[in-house]
């Protein structure tokens, strides 16, 4: 169960290098075997779908076809980037839902001696594998330096839990996977209502003012809630919030300093890895001050608010989780 086909995506080698490095660092302690899909190409991000239909899906499907060829012992493709994950999952799903699309894409693939039968592969995101396959129990057992005292805002981003063709996530709006994982690392996880709000996506490139407003909402709310840093699962989110924070501050005349790290970097730290091994320091908004909180092992100063005493007010309903039966939180 621990072998997977791996689709890194373009950013893993460039803007999201820290993500790539930190994934590399945690794979081994968790007994995961990630086999990179040979000669994969860019998934087209959100750009191609808005130009042509068949070419866009053929571009994505080439990766699926290559992965299907490479299947041995596993039919699961792992993508760490939310946009790649969504594109791959989407192509697989729509080729089935609209058979004519599937036929045409396969006709195009045939020009390169490839073919893909939709439904052959399971396309999953890295955090899905970590939470549901590896399990929080195992992750907890690898923690040697708990992140006690580090106030983290879990930021899932939008393209991961939505549209969720295969019903993999606990919720579309307030999924708990990242919260649970960060909690397993010992971090103080802040309830972040904007966890699946958009970071602006490609708007930083084409409509910066719109994008700045979206970035502002995210960092302002995180700041308001006293976060030391944000943890993300997506290179695009990291890039937008990190690299454009300076410009956003300039645009609004604000002075936010909200570092944003990949959740895998935090996992690496908790597992006892060294910061430089995990790409820490590659972020433009420095996390040095934030991480000082673990470096000096600050004791837990603030207990999370305990259950409300009965006489204080009216009782709350129990919280809903779609995956009540699923082995997520042990």
């Amino acid at each position, binding site marked *: 169960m621990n072998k997977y086909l791996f689709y890194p995506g373009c950013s893993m080698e460039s803007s999201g290098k820290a993500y790539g490095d930190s994934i590399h660092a945690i794979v081994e302690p968790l007994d995961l075997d990630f086999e990179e899909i040979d000669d994969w190409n860019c998934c087209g991000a959100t750009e191609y779908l808005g130009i042509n239909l068949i070419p866009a899906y053929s571009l994505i499907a080439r990766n699926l076809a290559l992965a299907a060829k490479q299947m041995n012992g596993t039919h699961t493709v792992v993508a760490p980037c939310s946009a790649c994950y969504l594109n791959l999952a989407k192509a697989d799903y729509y080729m089935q839902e609209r058979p004519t699309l599937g036929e045409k894409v396969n006709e195009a693939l045939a020009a390169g001696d490839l073919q893909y039968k939709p439904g052959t592969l399971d396309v999953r995101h890295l955090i899905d594998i970590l939470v549901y396959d590896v399990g929080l129990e195992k992750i907890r057992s690898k923690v040697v330096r708990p992140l006690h005292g580090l106030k983290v805002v879990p930021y899932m981003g939008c393209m991961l839990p939505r549209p969720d063709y295969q019903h993999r996530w606990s*919720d*579309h*709006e*307030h999924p708990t996977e990242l919260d649970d994982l960060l909690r397993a690392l010992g971090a103080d996880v802040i309830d972040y*209502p*904007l966890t699946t*709000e958009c970071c602006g996506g490609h708007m930083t490139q084409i409509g910066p003012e719109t994008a700045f407003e979206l970035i502002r*909402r995210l960092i*302002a*709310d995180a700041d*308001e809630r006293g976060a030391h840093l944000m943890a993300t699962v997506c290179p695009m989110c990291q890039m937008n919030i990190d690299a454009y924070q300076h410009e956003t501050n300039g645009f609004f005349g604000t002075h936010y300093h909200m570092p944003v790290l990949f959740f895998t970097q935090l996992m690496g730290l908790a597992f006892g890895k060294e910061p430089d091994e995990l790409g820490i320091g590659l972020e433009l908004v420095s996390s040095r001050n934030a991480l000082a909180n673990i470096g000096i092992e600050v004791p837990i100063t603030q207990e999370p608010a305990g259950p409300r005493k*009965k006489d*204080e*007010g*009216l*009782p*709350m*309903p*129990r*919280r*809903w989780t*779609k995956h009540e039966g699923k082995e997520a939180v042990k």
Partner: protein
Amino acid sequence: MSDKRSSPVDKKLERVGVYVCHCGSNIAGTVDVVDVTKWAQEKLGHLGVVITREYKFMCSSLGQELIEKDIKELGLTRVVVAACSPHLHEKTFRTAAKNAGLNPYLVELASIREQVSWVHTDKAVATAKAKAVVAGAVSRVIENVALDEIKVPINPNTLIVGGGIAGIQSALEIANAGFHVYLVEREPSIGGHMAQFDKTFPTLDCSACILTPRMVEVGTHPNITLLTWSDVVNVSGYVGNFHVTINKKARFVNEELCTGCGICQEKCPKKVIDEVYEAGLGYRKAVYTPFAQAVPNFPVMDKENCTYFIKGTCKACEKFCPTGAIDFKQEDQLIHIDVGNIVLATGYDLFDARRVSNYGYGRLPNVFTSLEFERLSNAAGPTTGNIVLRDGKTTPKSVGIIHCVGSRDKNFNNYCSVICCMQGLKFAHLVHERTGATVYNFYIDMRTAYKAYDEFYQRVLEEGTLFVRGKVAEVTNAARYENEKGKLIIQVEDTLAGKQRRIPVDMVILSSGLQPRHDAKEVGKLFGISCSTDGWFTEKHPKLDPVATMTEGIYIVGCAQGPKDIPSSVAQGAAASARVLDKILQREVTLEPIKATVDQAKCSGCKICNGMCPFNAITFIADDNVSEINPALCQGCGTCVAACPAGAISGTGFSDAQIIAQIDGLLLRNLEPELA
């Protein structure tokens, strides 16, 4: 082998009359009725068609007289009417035949309106298809046999399951007519959801004020046996003769001795959140009556939470009970009753608003469900009627009421829950009246389609409630601007203004929809009735028979059949009672003679049919090594007929011979005598 062998030699020709209806231009507009008539005369004459006629409206009294006259004068032994669907006028023409002395089951309808003229456009093609349909009907009617209706005696007692307002109404109607009713309720008290409400729309009567007298009447009625804290566990038998087993759960309170004084509840040290009656917003004790006016007024002990049952000590209730009515040794008790009819009034469950996670219920404290708000605004509720936030003290200054929560949404329930619009308006009025807060109602479509409902909408408009047409996208506590801090922000597209709006409020009320009881499927199975895709019990006919079900003698009323408000539930309760009384007063019930029978000479006792019948109509007689079908239990589906490997089971109304003949006719294999 050849089928020649099975058909009797030289069967005497029947005398068949074929009547083709124009239905004004409904049929004649697309089908050449005159051509069909002539064709039937020419091509089907050898089968015994002696007269064919066309007429403007066959179902008119003149049309019927035409048939009656021909039956008498021409000695017709079979009649085919090519007109509309049998579901519309089969009865009409059967009655006409009966009036003329012909067995009504020797009449056959050929549907050339719903299945031909209304669904096709090409006249030639439609005419040709009409001919085939008529040919099928002629072949079939020749194989029809005269049938007699079946009569079964009726037990005058009635079982009503569910003690909400629909069940209460139904019970009282029957009991007042002088017949005995068993009313079974699974909660400790009758009253149902209505007992939880504060006010009822559109007149704003106090719910308890109008409900309590009815509850008391049920509790004291000499013709009603009230069994609360009880479940129906088994049902067998058939209309007029049901045998029912009821499990009366242990109350741990002796009903003979208990006076309902309430001391046990007062002394019980264990406080439990009341998830049922108080909708999770208040507390009760481990021994409790759900509310002050409960009927019956005997408490029940909640075994899961009682300290004595958990730890083995306490017994405070027993110590203080003045009459010694507490009985920790009480056990569940099975009660067997016989009844003639059953009314199911099992009600609804409230949609679980936590599922709409973008509305934040369960995450954001000041988001409330409709049922919570009912308790909040109820003078007998946990806040004695003060509308406050979840902190228990702050009065909201602004309130948003969201309609269609979980309803009209393919992600949840795809139907309209009917009551939510009026409920939302009622809440708006109550909030406005009690707190003076600014109230917003968010709706997709305002549905106020009954007497005095739209007037209530106008009244709420007049009171200054603000209406925003748009399905709310989300409720969030993530403030974007200064004025949003500390508030719940309702984000919505105001579709009439064409703009996205963010409206900060203190409190959000979700007008949650209704959904079928979580165990509706199992209950349906227990009583032998079915559920729709949505999960509501299926009525016999959605318009013309809304309280009866496919199983004779079983009726459905109130929200068990589908979402509805109090007036409609009451009307249905009464309607079902009228149907039950009708059955009781007839003393016997007439059943459609569509039944299966086993030819015992042919039956080999292979026991294949015995597993086929969901109504347990087929019994195996071990001594004779044959199976037998109880005609009163048989519902006439014909599954066993098709299943019998020996061809030993035959079914009336839809016999093999009839269906085969119809297939041959439809394929025009009957246009000339088959040559040997």
